């Protein structure tokens, strides 16, 4: 495979392009509402109408407006049909001949689409994810070629640093610095891992990227591998994503056949192969050290860091772990340049962010917006506000590790620092809209239950703390808690946050802390008065009888101990005097 071959494939694809393309969404959302049948009937209808020469029915990745699926987009007419049934197929084909039709469609000029800026999702909904030729026609693998033939690994890392890309898995660590660390760590064997263990409830960005454009992730991994000096990559993807797994398998096979993966890529001395590892459903395996243990075939539990994976990762070798979206950002950065990428977004958060917009909002689906877009723009303008005439109460980001952004803070720009200041996190990109029918204590309870079930059980604070916090939240919901319980809950949140071993435990109290910060009145409204009179923290008289007794005992013993020591000290000082 050479650059010439890439250009040949690209030219052949563009020359063979038909006049009209019916893009039928074949991502998991639309598939589950029957888009496979729609596609089949469309193909049938095109054949019956004798339009086979002019019309192509293409199965594509996510067309973004998931709530209205199955979706079919007609090009170049620029019409997006929504809620398409197989019976609509002949009518859609008839419109191609100019016949008028009364089919539900949506306005492609609506803010939901117009406000988006596609970098990661540029190919999503456009190319057929199961054909590498489609990806090559969209300039795919050219960045890898350029990197391999024209740049040294150090230059590749420098470009990444200049782009300002930060990890899209949630924490937002600089990707360039991470690459540089792995590149500089000596080791005869190094690995690149793609973390596709997306587990936050309500998040489906990584799944959509893998289902819609798997080659961009493969290309990103190959570039990363060249930069750090790895020759083996793993994609750790959860078993709950069968469609993503099958598309990845197809993509890897095609890439190997064409020689853009494997040995001697683009006739250079660079070798790189990718294997898939399938997760068995543990949320904690999204944590990098647990993920690596799982790839090694061990029980997926985290271990203390340092040493960081960059130093000692998979089988003790230096390892680079990046999230799906981070890696999908890589090819565009090398294709269009670091300066172009750094020009998007805010000062400290560059580029775009993909969000899975879900919850009580009119337009749910996949959106990609420049960093710095306000939450209000996303949920009110693009999302179209709350469903059923309700009012938006809060927006939850970051899933079980994140927090709520209440209505007064909706003008917060979406970037790592601003969300962090509100006690939430960027997270991997789940964005759940809540309206006034949502009870915030229940939200906190839900996420706590999730963390409790998903705790790996290794460290004490997370394993036992989540159980007790969940118990207290249930108690509050059942109107059986007192102000003292609320105090206990807050104390536990603080303790679990600061003493847990890994990110799961350290962030598990976040939804509770965040709702306590902005919706404390909802907690307080459910509390019962303390059984032992009004609650006063500093006053021991208000402690329950048993606790007072213990306190008294403790004070007595302490007093006695002090007495004994003073007596002993007095004796030792007096003894010599009597001896004289």
């Amino acid at each position: 495979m050479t650059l010439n071959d890439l250009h040949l494939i690209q030219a052949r694809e563009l020359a063979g392009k038909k006049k009209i393309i019916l893009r039928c969404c074949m991502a998991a959302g639309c598939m589950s509402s029957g888009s496979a049948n729609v596609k089949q009937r469309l193909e049938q209808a095109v054949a019956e109408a004798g339009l086979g020469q002019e019309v192509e029915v293409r199965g594509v990745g996510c067309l973004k407006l998931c709530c209205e699926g199955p979706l079919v987009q007609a090009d170049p007419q620029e019409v997006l049909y929504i809620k398409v049934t197989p019976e609509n197929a002949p009518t859609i084909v008839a419109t191609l001949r100019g016949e008028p039709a009364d089919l539900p469609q949506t306005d492609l000029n609506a803010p939901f689409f117009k406000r988006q800026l596609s970098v990661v999702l540029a190919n999503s909904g456009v190319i057929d994810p199961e054909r590498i030729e489609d990806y090559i026609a969209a300039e795919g693998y050219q960045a890898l070629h350029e990197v391999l033939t024209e740049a040294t690994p150090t230059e590749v890392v420098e470009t990444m640093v200049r782009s300002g890309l930060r990890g899209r898995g949630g924490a937002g660590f600089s990707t360039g610095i991470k690459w540089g660390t792995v590149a500089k760590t000596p080791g005869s064997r190094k690995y690149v891992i793609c973390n596709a263990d997306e587990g936050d409830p309500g998040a489906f960005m990584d799944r959509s990227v893998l289902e819609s454009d798997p080659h961009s992730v493969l290309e990103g991994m190959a570039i990363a591998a060249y930069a750090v000096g790895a020759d083996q990559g793993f994609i750790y993807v959860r078993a709950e994503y069968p469609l993503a797994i099958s598309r990845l398998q197809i993509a890897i096979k095609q890439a190997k056949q064409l020689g853009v993966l494997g040995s001697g890529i683009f006739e250079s001395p660079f070798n790189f192969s990718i294997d898939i590892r399938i997760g068995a459903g543990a949320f904690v395996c999204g944590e990098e050290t647990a993920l690596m243990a799982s790839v090694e075939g061990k029980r997926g539990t985290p271990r203390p860091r340092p040493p960081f994976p960059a130093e000692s990762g998979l089988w003790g070798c230096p390892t680079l772990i990046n999230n799906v979206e981070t890696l999908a950002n890589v090819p565009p950065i090398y294709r269009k340049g670091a300066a172009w990428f750094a020009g998007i977004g805010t000062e400290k958060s560059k580029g775009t962010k993909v969000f899975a917009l879900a919850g009580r909002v009119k337009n749910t689906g996949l959106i990609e917006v420049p960093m710095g877009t306000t939450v209000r723009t996303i949920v009110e303008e693009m999302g179209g506000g709350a469903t059923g005439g309700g009012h938006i109460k809060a927006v939850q980001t970051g899933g079980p590790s994140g927090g709520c952004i209440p209505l007064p803070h909706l003008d917060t720009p979406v970037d790592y620092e601003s969300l962090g200041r509100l006690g939430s996190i960027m997270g991997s990109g789940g964005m759940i809209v809540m309206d006034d029918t949502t009870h915030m204590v229940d939200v906190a309870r839900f996420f706590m239950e999730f963390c409790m079930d998903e705790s790996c059980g290794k460290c004490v604070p997370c394993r036992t703390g989540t159980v007790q916090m969940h118990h207290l939240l249930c108690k509050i919901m059942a109107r059986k808690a007192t102000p003292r319980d609320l105090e206990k809950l807050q104390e536990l949140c603080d303790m679990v946050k600061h003493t847990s071993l890994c990110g799961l435990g350290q962030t598990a109290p976040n939804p509770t802390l965040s709702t306590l910060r902005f919706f404390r009145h909802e907690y307080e409204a459910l509390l019962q008065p303390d059984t032992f009179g009004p609650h006063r923290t500093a006053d021991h008289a208000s402690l329950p009888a048993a606790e007072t007794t213990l306190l008294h005992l403790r004070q007595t013993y302490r007093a006695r101990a002090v007495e004994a020591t003073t007596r002993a000290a007095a004796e030792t000082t007096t003894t010599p005097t009597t001896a004289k």
Partner: protein
Amino acid sequence: MAAKTLTIDGRQVSAEEGATILQAAEEAGAKIPTLCHLDGIYDVGACRLCLVEVAGVPKLLPACTTKVAEGMDVRTDSERIRSYRRINFELLLAERNHICAVCVANGHCELQTLAYSLGVDHVRYDYRFPRWEVDTTHSLFGMDHNRCVLCSRCVRVCWHIEGAGTKNVAGRGAQSRIITDLNMPWKHADSCTSCGKCVQACPTGALFHKGSTVGEMERDRSKLEFIVTAREKGQWIAPD
């Protein structure tokens, strides 16, 4: 090997390069509470009791897995750490059924000793009272999951000292439990060499030698009859 100088609780201490804070503190005579740590096996940093403050590091670090560094300023006993340790310990006591009075390890239990030293005389959290089973199928040892604190010391000695690999952790979160082989009764765990290292490693009464539990204190009433009637029957006199 180069030595590192650091400060532990305001005292200048020197430690070998590669040593952990815990080792350095022990040499210097500072006592850091530990539960999942056992001399001779590698550390996992799971119990979080040995967390210490290191100046300039925002997070608390486990003393058992953190290596010493030049100029490190460590605090092992601040108000904050004491409070966290206490909560940690109370959570541990509320998790399973730790009832000292009827425990085989009563008086010889690390959990009990730690509770005394940390001043944990009551637990503020609701006891969970889970129903856990006791595996007494093995001919020599028993496993009482009610007393288990999941420190994984038994697992580590089994894999890395004995090399048998019988013990393991199964399940997730509060449902985690120590299993033998593929979660089968201990007597059917063919890989077990009955070496007893796990029993020696256990900090609580979760793993015990059979015959030592309160429930196994069986009375032999026939002896009573013998004592009372032996003289009459002439049974105490040896036949010629």
